[in-house]
């Protein structure tokens, strides 16, 4: 039996009990979950049909087409007077060579009211069992300029290594020109790190919007970044110098583009869509979904996060 390397695994069994709720009903709950991991997309849970309340699903004409998996068929989730349009999908006839997802349903994360693993609430998207986030104290010398002004200078940063992503340099507030920062309304959610609040940075009579962020109460994975400030390595207005060497700017990840471009808005039901144009880091989803799943600027359910 050939076991693929972890970074190649795609359609894998998950031992976790996962439940999804909508309109006061549990639409699906299973201890026989599958997780679909695809390169460049967020991981997605699939439920075996036997563990899905198919009586609460109403067929639609809507489909999406994946060049890899084939055509996904969609259902509305209907509970009492609440309707989640095209919130459930299944591949009735997956393309040869793609994972055999026949007999499984999945649900659009944000159309649902709640997702749970065992008895804990899940946020934003399923966690990938092959990713980790390590926040490590470091002695590297980190200097950060925004709009030409030195706003952070530290020799005690916390480096955040998230598998496959660019290294982030978190700086304690004592080493940041906090007098140049003003809190922004923006926040983002991450299932590995928690809820981040953003700051604008004032520099040379300009205001740089959402140029820094901070996890005040991070999830335990990255506890060491609590209260620290972090700056973009993706923005032309920001330069990060580590041990005297300026970091090469990295391109903005596709699903950081918020709001989604107009071109990504879904067409009419029945119209075939190509999933690779979706801006939100997922292959499937209902029409008119323009929330960003990896980084949401004003979505999510903040009340849930306060208690974390």
């Amino acid at each position: 039996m050939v076991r693929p390397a972890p970074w190649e695994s795609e359609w894998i069994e998950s031992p976790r009990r996962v439940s999804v709720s909508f309109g006061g009903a549990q639409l699906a709950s299973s201890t026989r979950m599958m997780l679909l991991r695809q390169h460049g997309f967020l991981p997605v849970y699939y439920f075996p049909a036997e563990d899905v309340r198919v009586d609460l699903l109403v067929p639609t004409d809507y489909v999406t087409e994946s060049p890899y998996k084939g055509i996904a068929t969609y259902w509305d989730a209907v509970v009492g007077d609440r309707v989640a349009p095209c919130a459930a999908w299944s591949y009735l006839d997956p393309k040869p060579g793609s994972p055999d997802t026949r007999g499984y349903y999945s649900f659009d994360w944000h159309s649902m009211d709640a997702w749970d693993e065992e008895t804990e609430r899940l946020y934003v998207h399923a966690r990938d069992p092959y990713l980790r986030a390590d926040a490590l104290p470091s002695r590297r010398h980190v200097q950060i300029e925004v709009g030409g002004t030195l706003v952070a200078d530290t020799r005690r940063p916390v480096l955040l290594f998230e598998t496959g992503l660019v290294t982030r340099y978190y700086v304690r507030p004592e080493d940041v020109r906090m007098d140049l920062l003003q809190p922004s309304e923006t926040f983002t959610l991450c299932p590995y790190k928690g809820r981040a609040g953003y700051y604008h940075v004032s520099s040379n009579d300009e205001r740089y919007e959402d140029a820094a962020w901070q996890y005040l109460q991070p999830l335990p994975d990255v506890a060491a970044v609590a209260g620290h400030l972090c700056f973009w390595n993706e923005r032309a207005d920001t330069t990060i110098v580590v041990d005297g060497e300026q970091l090469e700017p990295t391109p903005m990840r596709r699903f950081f583009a918020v709001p989604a471009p107009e071109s990504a808005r879904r067409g009419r039901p029945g119209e075939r869509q190509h999933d690779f144009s979706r801006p939100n880091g997922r292959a499937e989803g209902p029409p008119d979904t323009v929330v960003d799943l990896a980084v949401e600027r004003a979505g999510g359910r903040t009340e849930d996060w306060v208690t974390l």
Partner: protein
Amino acid sequence: MSASERSFTTWGDAETSLAFEASPRSVRAVLADEVVAGSKHAMLLHESGYAPVYYFPLEDVRTDLLEESEHETTCPYKGEARYWTVAVRDRRAENAAWSYPRPAPGTPDLGGYLAFRWEAMDEWYEEDDRLVGGARDPYHRVDAVWSDRHVRVLLGGVVVAETRRPCLVFETEAPTRYYLSPDDVRTELLAPSGTSTACPYKGMASYWSATVGDRTVEDVAWSYEAPPPEQPKLAGLLCFWPERVDVIEIDGRPAP
């Protein structure tokens, strides 16, 4: 350097897959308070079935502390390894460093790198964080999740633990483990065994032996008294080896 530009080479065959990956972490290996190797350009060698191993560029190794040894080994996937003894003042770590000066065909260029046996070094660091029990695998995740599943542990026909509030630990490519509050365990049947193990993700585990009637089962359970900050839920919970008890029942069925 962006993640996508970082060097990542895979090779191997149907039985064994390997990858040689640039690590963004600064890594140090210390023996007798001397940094024997310290690099911001370390590589991580992944080999299926093994924990990943750090390889240091030669220029980041204190080669003046190395003495060539006679020891040699051969690996079908990596080539012929040569070994060195690391000597720092009166401390000697025999055959603790190795290299593949002529890597096997189809293998990435391992020749310019040296690796060190984990246990032979006194201390390892990623950035300023002391490592325990091995390098962290960036593709390995440990999620501890509270559950309401009904868990019973039977040993010698006796229920030694029963709970409806276990903490389930999902570790990549490992069986699910059921961690139980000591309040839900018959701890009067347990005694510390003195055994301990180290895990890079969960910290130092202490082991417990159980005596039921006239039968004692050594190291039947373990606990993490002081797990690292990323695993706060595990602190003080007890976990049983399914292989050493009669059965661990989950919702009335034997644990898979």
